């Protein structure tokens, strides 16, 4: 068994890791095209596999210092700057997912008596692949 702790999973834009990361996730899906007709066998629905996509979200502590922080996220979102999204482990020999993506949203929270957090969402474009550090 080689299960790993989620603490080892980071979101990066190419080589830069978002500062102060807390929880993150990434997911993919495919459209299922309904191809059912009146004469489909056994009155069962029939589907054809359609286009695929992927997206994810990450939360982090708000920290204005570092190489990839909220300021960069906001700038990249406004400019439509494409990220080389990498999501996974970061040490040599470990796996991660990678693909091109755009920033979809950002949110900065200022709670009372707790750490200030940010949350960002990203949307992948084209395919996502697996790679090794």
């Amino acid at each position, binding site marked *: 068994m080689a299960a790993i702790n989620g603490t080892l999973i980071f979101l990066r834009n190419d080589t830069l890791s978002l500062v102060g990361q807390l929880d993150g996730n990434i997911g993919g899906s495919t459209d299922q095209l309904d191809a059912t007709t009146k004469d489909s066998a056994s009155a069962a629905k029939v589907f054809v596999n359609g286009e695929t996509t992927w997206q994810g979200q990450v939360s982090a*502590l708000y920290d204005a210092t570092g190489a990839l922080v909220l300021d960069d996220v906001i700038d990249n979102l406004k400019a439509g700057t494409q990220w080389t999204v990498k999501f996974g482990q970061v040490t040599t020999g470990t796996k991660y997912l990678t693909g091109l993506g755009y920033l979809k949203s950002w949110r900065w929270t200022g709670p009372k008596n707790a750490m200030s957090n940010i949350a960002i969402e990203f949307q992948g474009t084209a395919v996502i692949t697996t790679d090794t550090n």
Partner: protein
Amino acid sequence: MEDPGQAILQAFFTALSTHTTLTVYTMLPPATLLNYIWIGDVTNSEDSAKDRYISNATVAVDICRAYQNQGSKKAVEDEASVIAQHIRTAVGRGLTMTGYTMHVCLLDSTTETVEETLTDKIFHKTLRYKMIIEET
């Protein structure tokens, strides 16, 4: 991750020692001394981000005054008020620490107790502070 216990004691000692008329201790004072402030009972639990160490900590500040025969707890209440005011507003929301950053420092609870000996009536007021601390 390191344990911030001693740094918390030092931060509170530095903050309080110049703002109170009572002697401040970070270890239990001698049994014969009945008028003091004791900074003790630190707790700490880790709540880290992926790329840094952050913990939730608490510390108790015990204010003690003793009287023979007649006594009033007003002096203890006044001392507690001075300390609470100092920690919350004069110093800000976080005390200066060495090796750590205190992001949040709030009064979590207060408790009062009274002891009576054959010769003294001893008033205690304990201020418990909760903090969010980041290792730097």
